[in-house]
């Protein structure tokens, strides 16, 4: 009877936190204040009760009181400030366990993996992996836990890829998603990828922790968003967020460094120390060298180099100069054509390598380099995608069964490669790549659903194939994928109605 108000406050505290996770407006601040106040009341009352029990000699009850009623409202602070920095994997797990009644292992494992990521040990990894592998079928928490294990190994690329992939899952543990969202927000801030962080905030892909919400505010100001938070609002977000000392510098606007460019000059023309024999070639060589020296080449820079090469190699002056020098040097017959072919091949090889590394599409230029580059990029990317999808689907026939998380990683890697290729190759490449991805993807989705009971994984594949089918306008594929997506997906948080 006396515990009833306490339980009501506890419930209200959880409701306030849940409501905050769904919001990114002024209500976020209101729910934060409410949740903070209720947590303080809960902790003080439970502490007083535990103290009273200790005093009268009921110390087992006092300890139980501390564990059951003091730890849950203070868990975010305890985890972040004590368990995680000290790498207390099991303590972080059990503290996280009491926070939620709904599939409590999901968030608890994430807390344990977070602590492991800070202070990785082989024993900690083995303990987390064993607990994760018991959880079948695959859900979002297993993905985030695996990402944090990769973080513990220092593998930032895998961590990023897996954290991003959690949003493809239909199973949704808000507490787990909050952890993934915070890691991605901090990662984006670390890389200075403010536009990426702002795009994620607009789409509200993940529930925002107080730290995420602050970093999103910083991102909105740095990318000149339509409605960035004002000084007062940003300071309020900063006050709500943890690690204020470390984030204080983000409150200030960045000092914009004057752009320093590693420009490469073209060979001097008339009057220079060394006169170029053909006017168009120096421009091509300089544009190409500049492109190869840029850390992130742009499509415009690639197009400029390709156009310059096409112009230079079909230029009559180039042919004339080569013919004259071939004669003077007593070069063999056909040396001019062979030299032009050799240069075009070397240039195409190098430009294709640069374009692949930067995931750039082929520019719309026609000539010996432009045409060859377009062909090379399209065929190379299509071949790589087709062999990847074929290898993936062959496992169904060879009976080579992998752990659910490995199935997920393989599919995420294929999807990432597909998206990189189609974003570089445009709609034309997308239309060419989709039929193969569709036939192999559907086959795997059916197998994973029917034979492996990996419903959420199968649904993620079908949902992605439907998106792609819509993008390329394949009506038969849209129909089939929509039917697959409409199936109810059994998850640990209940059946998710397909859409």
């Amino acid at each position, binding site marked *: 009877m006396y515990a009833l108000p306490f339980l009501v406050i506890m419930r209200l505290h959880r409701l306030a936190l849940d409501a905050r996770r769904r919001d990114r407006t002024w209500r976020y601040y209101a729910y934060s204040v409410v949740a903070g106040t209720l947590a303080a009341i809960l902790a003080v009352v439970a502490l007083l009760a535990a103290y009273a029990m200790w005093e009268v000699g009921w110390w087992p009850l006092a300890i139980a009181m501390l564990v059951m009623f003091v730890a849950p409202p203070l868990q975010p602070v305890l985890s972040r400030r004590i368990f995680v920095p000290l790498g207390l994997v099991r303590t972080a797990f059990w503290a996280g366990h009491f926070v939620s009644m709904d599939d409590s292992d999901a968030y608890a494992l994430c807390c344990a993996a977070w602590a492991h990521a800070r202070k990785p040990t082989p024993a900690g990894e083995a303990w987390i992996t064993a607990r994760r592998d018991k959880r079948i079928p695959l859900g979002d928490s297993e993905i985030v836990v695996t990402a944090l294990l990769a973080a513990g190994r220092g*593998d930032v690329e895998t961590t990023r890829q897996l954290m991003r992939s959690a949003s493809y899952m239909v199973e949704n543990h808000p507490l787990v998603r909050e952890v993934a969202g915070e890691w991605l927000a901090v990662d984006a801030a670390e890389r200075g990828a403010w536009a990426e962080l702002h795009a994620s905030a607009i789409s509200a892909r993940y529930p925002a922790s107080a730290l995420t919400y602050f970093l999103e505010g910083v991102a909105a100001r740095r990318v000149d968003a339509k409605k960035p938070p004002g000084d007062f609002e940003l300071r309020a977000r900063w006050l709500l967020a943890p690690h204020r000392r470390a984030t204080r510098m983000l409150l200030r606007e960045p000092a914009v460094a004057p752009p*320093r460019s590693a420009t490469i000059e073209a060979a001097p023309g008339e009057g220079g120390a060394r006169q170029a024999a053909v006017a168009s070639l120096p421009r091509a060589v300089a544009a190409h*060298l500049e492109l190869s020296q840029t*850390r992130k080449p742009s499509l415009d820079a690639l197009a400029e180099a390709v156009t310059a090469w096409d112009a230079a190699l079909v230029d009559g002056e180039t042919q004339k100069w080569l013919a004259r020098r071939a004669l003077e040097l007593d070069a063999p017959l056909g040396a001019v054509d062979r030299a032009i072919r050799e*240069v075009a091949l070397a240039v195409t090889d190098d430009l294709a390598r640069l374009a692949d590394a930067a995931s750039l599409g082929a520019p719309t230029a026609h000539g010996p380099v432009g045409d060859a580059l377009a062909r090379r990029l399209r065929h190379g990317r299509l071949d790589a995608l087709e062999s990847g999808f074929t290898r993936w689907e062959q496992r169904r026939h060879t009976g080579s069964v992998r752990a659910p998380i490995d199935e997920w990683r393989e599919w995420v890697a294929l999807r990432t490669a597909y998206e990189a290729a189609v974003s570089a190759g445009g709609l034309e490449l997308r239309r060419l790549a989709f039929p193969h991805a569709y036939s192999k993807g559907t086959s795997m989705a059916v197998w994973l659903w029917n034979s492996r009971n990996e419903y959420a994984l199968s649904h993620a594949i079908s949902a992605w194939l439907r998106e792609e089918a819509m993008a390329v306008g394949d009506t038969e594929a849209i129909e089939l994928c929509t039917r697959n997506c409409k199936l109810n997906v059994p998850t640990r948080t209940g059946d998710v109605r397909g859409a």
Partner: protein
Amino acid sequence: MAPNVVDNPFLVLGLSPDVSRIEIEREAHKLLGMLELGFADVQTYATPLGPRPRTAEAVRAAVAALRDPYQRLVAELWARHAPPVKASAPVETAEESRPAPSLRRALGWRP
């Protein structure tokens, strides 16, 4: 394509594309001798992308390439139209404004 420019035989030998075959041979002998004696001046050669290390193997490969008329034609094509050589490496382009690299750790995350 960068190898065609930075490993160009004319640049390796430090010669202009107009030189005669005799001058090429003479310069190669001189460089090989100086490299064997360990002269500091000849340990690197200038390219449009900054200095590169010069080895006896590279010098021999360069002179062998320039003895072949076809290979010399191609080498001339690159050497005549390459940008001017630079004594030091080019400065990298400043990109997005980044906060301190330790931000992730300071905010409680790894790696």
